[in-house]
């Protein structure tokens, strides 16, 4: 579980806060998505949950961030890495750069945590299977495609068995099939191991398909919080330039032309859209 209590944060040498008075609680096992326009504070929120704010990016943090029972400001990053896993947007910079094979790359975090070798081998095999990279085990991490690297980065963090998993656009280099596979694996993990997942994602169709809950950030503040069907169909995303799913957009266009009843909810997923358009067919 993680909790933010009136959290405000300013990066060093800046006047405008990157996060403004954020208060929220995400229970264990929940798959929560964070959406918003560029510069809304999504990545800063990810760094805050992982403890990089304030331990790496110093700045000014007020309020309290509690992750897996630890106040992030009161403990060290080393205390947090066992509990919080962070997968970054750019897969190329997540490769350690010191390992010759993908298997060894996945082992990097486990070696640093001092996990015994036998257990390490078990965890590596399981996470490589889960993320679909078992066939890449002996390949050099530096010769992988962006999508493959992204899977390796995810596997490397999952192998550390965090209680909270923060994913900052983890599928930016993946094709649609790869994205579905990876997010489905994360969703299954969240359910089976009660891992709290915070997914930062611009592609709202994926958010609608996988998240239990959606948070909308705008200018560092929380402007909407609720189930995907409710939040993604609301006008708040358009108001804050956070986009809309293509299904919602189609329904809005249909509504503008009189082809969608004003009282009918807007769809946010493909099955919802198909069912609604079929029902509306004369």
């Amino acid at each position, binding site marked *: 579980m993680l909790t933010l209590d009136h959290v405000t944060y300013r990066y060093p040498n800046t006047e405008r806060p990157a996060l403004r008075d954020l208060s929220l609680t995400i229970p264990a096992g929940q798959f929560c998505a964070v959406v918003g326009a560029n510069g809304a504070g999504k990545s800063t929120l990810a760094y805050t949950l992982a403890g990089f704010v304030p331990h790496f990016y110093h700045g000014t943090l007020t309020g309290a961030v509690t992750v897996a029972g630890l106040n992030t400001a009161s403990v060290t*990053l080393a205390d947090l*890495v066992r509990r919080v896993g*962070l997968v970054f947007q750019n897969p190329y910079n997540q490769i350690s*750069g010191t390992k010759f094979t993908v298997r060894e790359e996945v082992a990097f975090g486990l070696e640093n945590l001092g996990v015994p070798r036998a257990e390490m081998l078990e965890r590596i095999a399981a996470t490589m299977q889960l993320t679909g990279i078992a066939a890449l085990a002996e390949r050099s991490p530096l010769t992988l495609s962006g999508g493959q690297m992204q899977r390796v980065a995810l596997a490397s963090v999952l192998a550390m068995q965090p209680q909270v998993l923060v994913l900052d656009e983890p599928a930016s280099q993946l094709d649609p099939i790869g994205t579905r596979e990876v997010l489905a694996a994360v969703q299954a993990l969240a359910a089976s191991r009660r891992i709290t997942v915070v997914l930062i994602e611009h592609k709202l169709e994926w958010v609608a398909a996988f998240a239990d809950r959606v948070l909308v950030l705008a200018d560092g503040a929380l402007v909407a919080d609720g189930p995907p069907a409710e939040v993604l169909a609301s006008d708040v995303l358009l108001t804050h330039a956070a986009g809309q799913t293509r299904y919602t957009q189609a329904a809005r266009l249909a509504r503008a032309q009189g082809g969608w009843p004003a009282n009918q909810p807007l769809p946010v997923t493909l099955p919802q859209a198909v069912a609604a358009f079929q029902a509306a067919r004369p």
Partner: protein
Amino acid sequence: MSEQFSIFQSRPSRLHALHPVTKLVLTFCLLAAALLLPGLWTNYLLFALAILPLATLGQVTGPLLRAVWPTVLPFAISVFLIQGIIYPHGTPLFSLGPLTLKREGLLLAISGTGRILMVVSNFILFALITRPDTLMLSLVQRGVPGGLAYIVVASIQLVPRFRARAAAILDAQHARGLETTGSLRRRLSAIVPLVVPLILSSLVDVEERALAIEARAFNHPGPKTSLIEITEAGWERPARWLLLLTVPVSLGLRLWLG
């Protein structure tokens, strides 16, 4: 980015199976011999009697020779031209127009080339048979700071990425009309738009990579473990000490024979 900068060649050889520190000590002793032992042809002899047999044992003779010649040959040609011809007050061997080849210069060139051949081939052989990560792991296990080991290995491994980025920036600036050929002045003026983006993007990379390795517990206190198991045969430790004895022997021969 489809290459790895390290020239390590994986082979099922007994030389590869040695502990990295044993290989390091062997390389150090051969280096000391190359630099200390007297004699005009000593380094050629060492190359023939030590480096080549070791390369054969490690099944890397081809890669070794392919890597050594491009380095040593240009050096040999230039040192023969410079030392052989420019050497003052030497014994003339033959003249071609205004140029005279002197005996003493020729001997210096032979000796210098032998030394370079030995030093270069020694280091290349070491790189061909030693994985950088296992070397660093074994050094960390012997007390070298982990951060230092990381910087060394990551720097070696990530050179291709840096090179690929430099090529991408060059292409991008070409596409925007930047001229990088022609007069010296034009070439100099092209440096800033090429170097500044390279440095800035590399700084961003460094920050992101620092975050990424922190997220993977790089600075986690306490003992670390390793997936790679580095094996060491029982005879290797005494063999290393025996090898190290060759260093004072080389020094003694140098002092004795001059």
